[in-house]
């Protein structure tokens, strides 16, 4: 395919040609280590997972070919539908809320440059640096019967609301979602802050001369001009919401009942506990395809119109 590329109209001198050719190939050589690692540890395992999804396999004995049987089970599973709904709810907490918060903060900071921006950025970004397992354990304490949340509620006279939040059928999913918001908001904020620094300050000044207030500025300048950053933030956070596992696993393990079960938890249970590696693989493939589709839609929608 590469060989039929059109030949240059005027052949360059031989020496230059050779040099250019070498440069082209040396480029690929630079890429090789990363490409090799990526192929070995990402592409091949992913293909292997897809391959396994066509078998009934308990992980030990000989597998038997299942065709599309595992995929039929995935579609028919009522527990999976509930898990998908929970993941959908988590998008609200992992994407919508953090992006809204991030935008408002970025707008406030962008209106007037303040000192100590680097400190604010570092503090806000901190949750992103912590391992999610540590985050989960910390929030388990925060939500516990005698935890921070309940202590605060009692202190302000709302003691009758105090409860073990992660054990509540009504609140567990919200509680997990709030942890997600806490983790992801910093990332969004930092993304948007760097985005606002790209926006020419004169645009704000011009709009102020035209009599625009802070709200008008936010809607007409900050949000439209941050569009590329919003697209990136949306992609990253939606992926985090749909593929969430560690946070849920550490805080509730899917409970109480099945109120916080997400697809990641189901895959883990099927593969490592339930001895259904094929079904788990099929579920993983479906989840990956769904995430691909969602991200594709986000990229399409956010592309700037010419």
């Amino acid at each position, binding site marked *: 395919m590469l060989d039929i590329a059109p030949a240059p109209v005027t052949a360059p001198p031989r020496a230059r040609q050779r040099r250019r050719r070498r440069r082209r*190939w040396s480029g690929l050589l630079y890429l090789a280590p990363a490409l090799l690692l990526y192929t070995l540890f990402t592409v091949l395992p992913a293909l292997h997972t897809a391959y*396994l999804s066509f078998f009934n396999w308990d992980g030990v004995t000989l597998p038997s070919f299942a065709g599309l049987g595992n995929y039929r089970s995935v579609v028919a599973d009522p527990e999976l539908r509930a898990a998908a709904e929970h993941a959908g709810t988590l998008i609200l907490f992992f994407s919508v809320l953090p992006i809204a918060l991030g935008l408002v903060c970025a707008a406030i900071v962008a209106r007037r440059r303040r000192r100590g921006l680097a400190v604010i950025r570092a503090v806000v970004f901190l949750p992103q640096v912590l391992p999610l397992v540590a985050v989960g354990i910390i929030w388990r304490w925060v939500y*516990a*019967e005698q935890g921070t949340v309940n202590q605060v509620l009692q202190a302000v006279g709302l003691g009758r609301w105090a409860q073990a939040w992660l054990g509540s059928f009504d609140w567990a999913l919200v509680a997990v979602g709030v942890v997600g918001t806490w983790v992801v908001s910093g990332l969004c904020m930092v993304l948007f802050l760097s985005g606002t620094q790209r926006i020419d300050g004169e645009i704000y000044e011009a709009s102020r001369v035209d009599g625009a207030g802070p709200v008008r500025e936010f809607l007409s300048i900050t949000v439209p001009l941050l569009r590329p950053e919003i697209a990136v933030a949306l992609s990253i956070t939606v992926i985090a919401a749909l593929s969430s596992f560690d946070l849920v696993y550490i805080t509730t393990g899917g409970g*109480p009942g099945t109120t916080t079960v997400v697809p990641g938890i189901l895959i883990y249970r099927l593969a490592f506990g339930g001895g259904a590696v094929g079904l788990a693989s099929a579920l993983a493939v479906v989840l990956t395809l769904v995430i691909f589709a969602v991200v594709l839609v986000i990229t399409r929608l956010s592309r700037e119109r010419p």
Partner: protein
Amino acid sequence: MSPLPRTPLSPIGRGFSRRALLSGLAAAGAVTVAGCSSLTPGSSAAGSTASAGPVSTAVPSDPVTLTVADADDTTMTQGLLDAFRAKYPNVTFKRQYTGWDDYLKSINLTMSAATPPDIAQFTPGMQNLVPGGLLLNADGYATAYGWSSKFPGLDQITFSPDGKTVGTGSLYGVPGGLSFEGVYYNKQKAARLGLTTPAKTVDELEAMFAKAKAAGELPLVVGNLDGGLNHPFNELLSVFLAPADREAWAFGHSGASIVLPGARTAAETIQRWVTKGYISSNVNGISDNDATAAFAKGQGVFRISGNWAAAAVGKGLGDNAGYFTMPQATADAKIHTTGAGVYYCVSAKTKSAAAAAAFLDFVGSADAAPLTAKAGFMAPKADAMPSQAGLFGSLLTGWQATVRDQGLEPFIQNASTPTMSDTLTNALQQLAGGKATVDQFLALLQADFDKYHQQ
């Protein structure tokens, strides 16, 4: 995703270096694929149940090295290995310790490898190795050594040829240290409330709960965030469900059911304890470990848990820590309680089955009992455990009585299906949260059972 500027890779001719690079990549890929001998590694020796080699109780006298894989974070396994080696210096052990979670996830693959460990700690799920012929059928050694009279709880490691039914078929290992459940209580509070311990029946225990509740105390400390309510539930099953029915269900016998009057009574008891406030309404938000910690700090009056909690409870409550075996339905009933053990099994691929079997036999000996006890477990040879005072003394008395009554019954979540642990946690959370009736609760458990055993 982001459109990269398109640069033609080779406008003129064939680049030698490109071919070299591609063939290099291809070779690397081929090596990787060849590296895993098959894309779906699995054992094909299905259905093989023959014991390996002739059975002998003689310990080989030539130098032998045995690899031991385990997830025992106490001093027991290392202590037993050292003691065995002191007795038979020609036997060397290579111990591979792995943390519990990782061990659970990896041991089946480890045992399917070309050179698996000779001896491994048995964990739930390893019965899947039985149909693959990867575990040594120990029936021959059991007869030769007389294990049935040396070890309690052997039915928990006895499997049918397809590995799906526990308690019937062939023996695949022995328990080293055992655990069993009972009732801890806070002596100081019990005295203040005027409770006469031990409770002789479940009704008596419940009356004590009522008294504690009336005095403003939390009667029973439970944490069900990760399913810890299963401890009281398993104990109540031991009391109310006939042992044969309990084992048929826990061991996955075909046609077994948990929708029985005994199990209903157990579930109704749990439900009543929650409704009456004997168990905290926040039970679903507290982890099992946190519940033990809270009880050890002085919260509540009673806690139903296993002997693994004794160290923490004893350390926290000191002389106020008390213990009695689970009370039964009537005062004169034999002891029935729930328990499990650290079991050792042997790989079918071992080259020194006789030495491995000798170690398994040693585990049940009087020499091993003090080592097992020191690590906090109950020893198979209960009467050889060193006598102790205080909380551990009460535990030892309870254990000896349990072995005498042959009252050790399996946790229902460990044996019946690979997913039962998650299902039981889910179902108990719904029962405690008032989201499931007793009927729905039992139906949830039975649905998981039927799904697995009808395959």
